[in-house]
């Protein structure tokens, strides 16, 4: 019998019992639907996290001061004032695996512009900071080395600060006062949104490092060092070099504890990937179980169908159908039932992924490879679970089948 004919016979038989076919497919629909939803959301949220981490900066290494230790009482991380501009100069001069280095001197202060005021963090940085942290300039310009050398009173605003201080006005060229020091706004940063930790990355003011250090801060200590390694592969080597240089700059004896802490985002990515990976795996195995249950449902209905159609099978055998023809007929019916369920499952899964994604603010990424392999898998489920009933049909004795009431 021709394939086309076999498929049309199968479709006819499925259409004949619409409700039963639908209920049979339900297991597959739920299984496939949840696989598609979960994988799409899992991949989406992983991409989101990677994007968040990347927005912190490419190949970013962050150095923070170590903890204080006075007579055995230890402070928390960052309590020690161990980092200075000398460290920056040393790194700029000697480091080979770092593309760029910037100090971060943070001062929390009230900022006033005309009638508006806003409390935010003013961060003194080098011009390279823009590249290290992946910030973009939306309007105006960023400061250069010259402004850093001359301690120029210029500022670049984050989007949030710009909105709060200059609600209906272009901030570029405007003046503002930080702790009574007048600054000129020379640029506005492009919006970056929330970080994966939930803080607003646009609620900042950037100014030249020396300006903040000497005009707003104590002129000595810096809070952080941000550096970018020359490549992702060199992250570990760059970290080691950074450690060596800082230890020698700080004059630490061999064996003494570091008075600083270096962090990079690979740990953050690895953790996030692990968490989402585990979740996806867990939920996918639940989905796999429901596919299995769906397959058993198909087998059950196919067995019922074979019994119901014993007479039909007898007629077909009597007029010359080979056992293989009968096997093919029932296998194709099971496969179509399963594939149809898979198709509906994929569509509803895509809908659910999109719906849940927009509800939770997670992006849903549909991987065509996942969709394709799901289709193949449901087809295989149909053939696998359809085989036993189909073989039972093919092995019927035509005489008994014809007499079956």
């Amino acid at each position, binding site marked *: 019998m021709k394939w086309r004919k076999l498929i049309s016979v199968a479709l006819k038989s499925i259409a004949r019992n619409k409700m039963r076919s639908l209920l049979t497919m339900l297991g597959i629909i739920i299984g496939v639907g949840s696989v598609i939803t979960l994988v799409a959301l899992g991949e989406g949220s992983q991409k989101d996290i990677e994007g968040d981490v990347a927005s912190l900066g490419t190949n970013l290494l962050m150095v923070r001061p170590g903890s204080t230790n006075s007579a055995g009482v230890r402070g928390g991380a960052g309590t020690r004032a161990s980092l200075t501009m000398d460290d920056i100069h040393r790194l700029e001069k000697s480091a080979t695996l770092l593309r760029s280095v910037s100090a971060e001197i943070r001062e929390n202060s009230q900022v006033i512009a005309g009638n508006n005021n806003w409390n935010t963090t003013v961060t003194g940085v080098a011009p390279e900071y823009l590249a290290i942290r992946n910030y973009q300039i939306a309007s105006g310009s960023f400061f250069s080395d010259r402004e850093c050398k001359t301690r120029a009173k210029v500022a670049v605003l984050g989007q949030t600060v710009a909105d709060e201080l200059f609600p209906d006005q272009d901030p570029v060229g405007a003046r503002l006062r930080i702790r009574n020091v007048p600054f000129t706004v020379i640029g506005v940063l492009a919006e970056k949104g929330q970080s994966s930790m939930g803080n607003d990355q646009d609620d900042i003011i950037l100014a030249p490092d020396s300006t903040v250090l000497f005009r707003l801060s104590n002129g000595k200590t810096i809070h952080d060092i941000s550096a970018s390694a020359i490549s992702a592969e060199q992250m570990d080597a760059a970290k080691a070099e950074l450690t060596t240089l800082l230890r020698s700059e700080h004059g630490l004896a061999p064996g003494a504890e570091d008075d600083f802490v270096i962090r990079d985002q690979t740990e953050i990515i690895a953790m996030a990937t692990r968490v989402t990976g585990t979740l996806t795996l867990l939920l996918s195995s639940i989905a796999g179980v429901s596919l299995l249950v769906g397959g058993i449902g198909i087998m059950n209905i196919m067995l019922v169908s074979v019994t119901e159609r014993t007479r039909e099978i007898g007629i077909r055998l009597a007029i010359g159908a*080979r056992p293989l023809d009968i096997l093919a007929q029932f296998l194709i019916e099971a496969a179509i039932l399963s594939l149809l369920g898979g198709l509906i499952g994929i569509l509803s899964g895509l809908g659910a992924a999109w719906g849940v994604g927009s509800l939770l603010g997670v992006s849903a990424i549909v991987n065509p490879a996942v969709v394709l392999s799901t289709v193949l898998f449901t087809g295989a489920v149909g053939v696998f679970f359809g085989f036993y009933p189909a073989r039972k049909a093919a092995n019927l004795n*035509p005489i008994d089948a014809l007499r079956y009431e």
Partner: protein
Amino acid sequence: MSAEQISLSHVSKVFSLGEAKVKALDRVSLSICRGEFVAIMGSSGSGKSTLMNILGCLDTPTSGSYSLEGIPVEGLNRRQLADLRNTKIGFVFQGFNLLARTTALENVELPLLYDRHRTTANPRQSSIAALERVGLGNRLDHEPNQLSGGQQQRVAIARALVTRPALIFADEPTGNLDSRTTLEVLALFQELNREGLTLVMVTHEAEVARYASRLVELRDGRLLRDEAIRNQRNAAADLAADEAGGIL
């Protein structure tokens, strides 16, 4: 013309029901030639159905040999038997055995779809021709439940004819029909027989058997009688007489 189409020699069929062995057929020898119209008679349990199943290649004998058109049937596997049924034999059953919710045309076309050798060039055309042959050219798209018993049996006959078989086996073809449609079906059989088709019909009604040209009677699995029927009745004539009687 090699006349012998069916040759059974010393065919036995034994069924085992647990411990007990039932001999349904006991050394039956039979030869049927082209163009014969054979009625097989016997009471229930006489083995006529078993004989029919073996002749129809639905079952194989326990011992003895059977050749159909010179092809030895014993020792063929299920697939080969299916092909033989498909190309050489047409079946007409008591219960019509048409596929439900399937049009007359599709029912008739079915055997051609299982023909691997594509001996029929245009299945659709041949099926329409077969239905026209049995007088149902205007019922192509009717489903079995929209047809009367006689019409259903004629669809079944068309299905048996469509593969141009060597012979047709009819198992109690008139068992579910009233006397008038019985005559109609028998008239059709006689017409086909006159055109050269071999017919083997199982029946338990002596009335029906009288329309055949040869009578084979079985009892307890043995051949009891095998003789030509003198004064074979003509179904068409009886039908006409019946109609005339109805008018009077």
